[in-house]
Structure formats: C-alpha cells, structure tokens
C-alpha cells in the first residue's frame, strides 16, 4: 500500500470519525494525524512566539526594564534604564531619577560599596526593596548596639575590625536577597535582582619589586589562563593565597601572582617598611577591593560572575553585547563607556526597555577603601 501524507486537507471532526477497519486504513489514519497536530502547533507557536505578546501576560516582563552590571579593576558599573510601562503602553520614563519614589536601583543601608538593582514587576520589586532595606537596617542597628569600643586593629586575624566598622559585604547582601525571594516560594515575587559591589579581600603583600618583574612572565601566563574562563575559580585562588600567608613565607610564589595582577589596588608601594616584617612574622596581608557581581532569579537562585551580569527584558541582547564588548582591567570612565555602549545598543533593539539610561560607577579610591559612586545619565532612543 502507499502511505499518503495529506498535509493540506484537515481531517474530519473526531466525533464523526470512526475507528478505521482495515490495516491499510489504520496506517493511513495514523499518518494523517501528525499534519493536523503540526498545524495546531504552528498556529500556537505563532500566537505565543512573539516576545512582545508574551510580555502582556508575563508578570516578570509586564513593566519592562533591564539592567547590566560590569566589573573592572577595583570598580563596577551598573546601568539601568528608565522605562515604566503597562505592557505595550509606556506610562513614564523617570523611574530612576531622584524625583521618583520607586527606584529600581538603590544603595542598601549600612553598605557603602554595594548597589542592589532589580527588574520585573514594579509593585513586587518595590515591596522587595523595602523589605531588604528594612532587614539590613535592622541588622545594622542590632550589630551597632552590640559593638565594643575597640579601635580598629590592622593586625587583626579576621582583618575586618570590630563590628562597628564592619559593613556588610555584597556577598552577604546577595545571600539575604536570595533568601528573601525564596521565602515566597509559593507565591514568588516576580523580581530578578542584581547585586554589585566591592568586597574586601585579604591578599598577601608582595614584598619585592624585583621578584615581581622576574616573575613577570609567569604573571602574564597566569593572567591569560584565568581570564579565559568567565566564571573563574575565585575560591581556589583565594584558598591558595591564604595558604601561602599562613605558612609564613615572605617570598612570593607563582600562585599568588594571578590575584595580584588582576586585582591591584591603588596603593603605590607594594612593600611595607621592614619594621613591620619584624613585628609580625606571618600574616602579611592587605585588603583589596574586589568587584563582586551576582544576579538572582525570581526564586533566589544566585549566579555570580567575574565579568558582567544582566537581567530584565533585554537580557538576551545584553548577554550578547556585553560579551562582545567586555574586556578585563577596565577602569573608571572607560568602564562606564563600555558598559553604557553595551547597554544602549541592546536597548535599542528592545521595545520594552529604553527611554533613558543611567550608569552608576562604584569605584574604590585610596588606601582606606573609600568608595566613590558616580552617576552618569546617558541619552538613548525614546521608542
């Protein structure tokens, strides 16, 4: 027998069709099913495939908005757009200025170098940011009340000083944000957050400048290796670094160098005066400010990165542009430019984001770990 695929004529309605009797008829009956199913699937996919149409019913994309955060040398740039809409309709374009009460990007209380930003449903996001701020302020208040009046000790094991001087690290803020989101597991907040900041990291001090130059070759090799992976093995490097400091060796080993080269601070003299060396045999460490980037999804699953994170309706495009334009060791205005360019070019292709872009630059200056935050307002297409 021949099997015929009738791709055009739709089969008769199921109520009227009877079970085919002969084997030949049954075979043909089976073959006639797929085209109808394919047709239905095709129609459904047309209906649901357009991103914009899906956004009308998807709470996470209903209000629009996107965020991109990029890491550079001792600095972070976060870009966010200003559109607030109800589906296709744009309601306002001043989401992130000082005038608007709901900011998609804010500085949590008691942190000087962390910024939290979110995309998604505006109502849920505002509630979430209020909850997060209240929780952090509460913690800070409780911690401050229990502090003992010690001076900050530079020779501290922990290196963080007393509680009073300690601020919450961006990793901790990200963890808290993730827990807050997971608390609502049954009825989640339609919010995807981005936490970006500079965290203090202990790193052994490089004593000799000659050794640095000598091992310059090794430095470059290591740098190339570690910058190949986007999600670098920070923990591995950290434990290596700490291990060498505990053994009390004054010499610089190869394994310490990658950290040094990627994460140099603004300190000019790598070596401290010899008297300190005599005082403390081991634990010659100093603190550097390392960029920390983390994004969470709606339920609080965190993912961190060394290079960039993005979130929001334009995140697909943002992944592409940021991947293409990011390079390591960006700093200052250059970082802002790269981040802004990647951000704006992705936004231009997305109808649910845009109407103004603001880039914040968090930058560590000086030795004390002071942090400056600069705001840059960019022009972009208003459509």
């Amino acid at each position: 027998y021949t099997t015929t695929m009738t791709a055009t004529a739709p089969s008769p309605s199921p109520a009227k069709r009877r079970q085919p009797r002969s084997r030949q008829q049954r075979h043909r009956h089976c073959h006639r099913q797929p085209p109808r199913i394919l047709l239905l699937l095709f129609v459904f996919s047309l209906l649901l495939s357009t991103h914009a149409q899906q956004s009308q019913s998807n709470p996470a994309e209903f209000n629009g908005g996107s965020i991109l955060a990029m890491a550079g040398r001792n600095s972070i740039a976060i870009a966010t757009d200003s559109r607030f809409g109800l589906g296709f309709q744009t309601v306002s374009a001043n989401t992130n200025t000082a005038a608007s009460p709901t900011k998609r990007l804010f500085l949590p209380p008691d942190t000087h170098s962390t910024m939290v930003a979110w995309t998604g449903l505006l109502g849920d996001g505002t509630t979430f940011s209020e909850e997060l701020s209240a929780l952090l302020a509460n913690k800070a208040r409780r911690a401050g009340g229990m502090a003992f009046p010690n001076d900050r000790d530079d020779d501290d094991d922990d290196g963080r000083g007393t509680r009073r001087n300690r601020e919450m690290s961006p990793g901790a803020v990200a963890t808290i944000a993730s827990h807050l989101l997971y608390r609502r597991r049954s009825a989640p907040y339609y919010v995807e957050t981005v936490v970006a900041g500079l965290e203090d990291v202990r790193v052994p001090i490089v004593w000799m400048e000659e050794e640095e130059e000598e091992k310059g070759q090794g430095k470059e090799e290591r740098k190339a290796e570690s910058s190949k992976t986007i999600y670098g093995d920070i923990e591995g490097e950290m434990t290596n670094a700490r291990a060498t400091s505990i053994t009390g060796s004054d010499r610089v080993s190869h394994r310490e160098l990658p950290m040094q080269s990627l994460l140099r601070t603004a300190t000019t003299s790598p070596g401290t005066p010899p008297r300190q060396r005599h005082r403390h045999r081991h634990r010659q460490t100093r603190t550097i400010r390392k960029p920390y980037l983390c994004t969470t999804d709606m339920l609080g699953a965190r993912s961190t990165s060394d290079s960039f994170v993005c979130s929001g309706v334009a995140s697909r495009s943002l992944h592409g542009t940021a991947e293409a334009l990011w390079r390591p060791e960006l700093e200052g205005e250059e970082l802002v430019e790269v981040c802004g360019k990647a951000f704006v070019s992705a936004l231009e292709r997305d109808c649910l984001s845009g109407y103004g872009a603001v880039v914040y630059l968090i930058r560590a200056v000086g030795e004390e770990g002071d942090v400056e935050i600069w705001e840059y307002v960019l022009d972009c297409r208003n459509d």
Partner: protein
Amino acid sequence: MYQQNLDKIAELSSHSAMGVSGPNCDLVNFSELGTGLSDVTPHLAPYHDQCRYISKNLALYELSNDGMKLSTHAQANFCRGELAKALRKGPFQVNVILGGYDENVPNGGSLYVMDYLGSCQKVNYGAQGYASNFTLSIMDRDWEEGLNEEQAVKIVEHCIRELNMRFLLNQSNFIIKVVDKDGVRTVKADSDPTDN
C-alpha cells in the same frame, strides 16, 4: 449602566484626593466613596462605614500623631503598600491616581499613578483605564513645566473632548476636581453626584 453620577474621586485628606477606577465593590471599599452613598441608601450604612479604608487610616494617623498630616508622598506609599499587601490575599482591582498639595514640595502639587499590582510612579500627568490610550498622547503634547490652574483644567477638558469624539464606550459625564493650597474643590461637574 447602573449609575451616571458616581463621583469616583475621593477626598483623602484636606489636601489630597484619589481617583479610583475598577469594579465598584473594590472602589468603594478601598477609598471613601461611601460618603454620598449613605445618604442615598441608608439601610446599607453599616457596610459603607467599613468602606473608607484609606481615608480613615490617614485620619487615624493624624489623630494619633498630634495633628501631623502625612505628605502626599507618604500617602501614596501607604496606599501602594496596602495594594501590594492585598495583592496576594484578595487583591483590590483598583487603579488609582492620587494627587495632593504639600507646602514644602518645590512645585507644590504632586501626582502619583498606581495600579492594582502595587506599582507606584510619580508623574506629571497620568491616566488609568481605556482613557489612557487616548489621552496620554494629548497630555504628552500639551503639558509643560509651570502650568497654572486654568491651563491645566484646559488640558483636561481637551482630553475629555477627545474622548467624547473618539472613544466608543465613552460616558459623557465627567467631574473635574482641583487640589491646591486651599484644599480640594470641584471645578466642574456634569451631573450632581448626590442625585438619586
């Protein structure tokens, strides 16, 4: 059509007013639209007493805090918080525009647009419901910084004319209220809300 003269703009406090749009039960429950209704349907008075949630809570704050009035910004945040809290329990399906006058705010007046999902935006002009499709573009064009009351009312009247002309489901009765340093007053009412 049940009623042609429902006044949907509730006076929250002496210097702020809130316009609500949505199903009537939620409207009345959420704001204080029970004011006129108690006169009209006295047998439903106990029900209406429960229906003034936002305005009575604001009045309570004033009473418990030595006569300190909440600013428009604070009222808007409170309103948004209530909408957000109710969202996952039993949502008020009301879309709200809240406007008020504060002395220490640069321009004096501030306007907040909220929707039933709990989002709140401070805007220069706003519209909720089907009207927004027609009127937002008119206001985009006509609004500018530093309008006085007369010009603002003219823009609103322009919007109303546009709706009369272009909107299929249009109702022809509109009420225009103004909030300024002297409080809330009705500028124009096409039909008397207290009519039976």
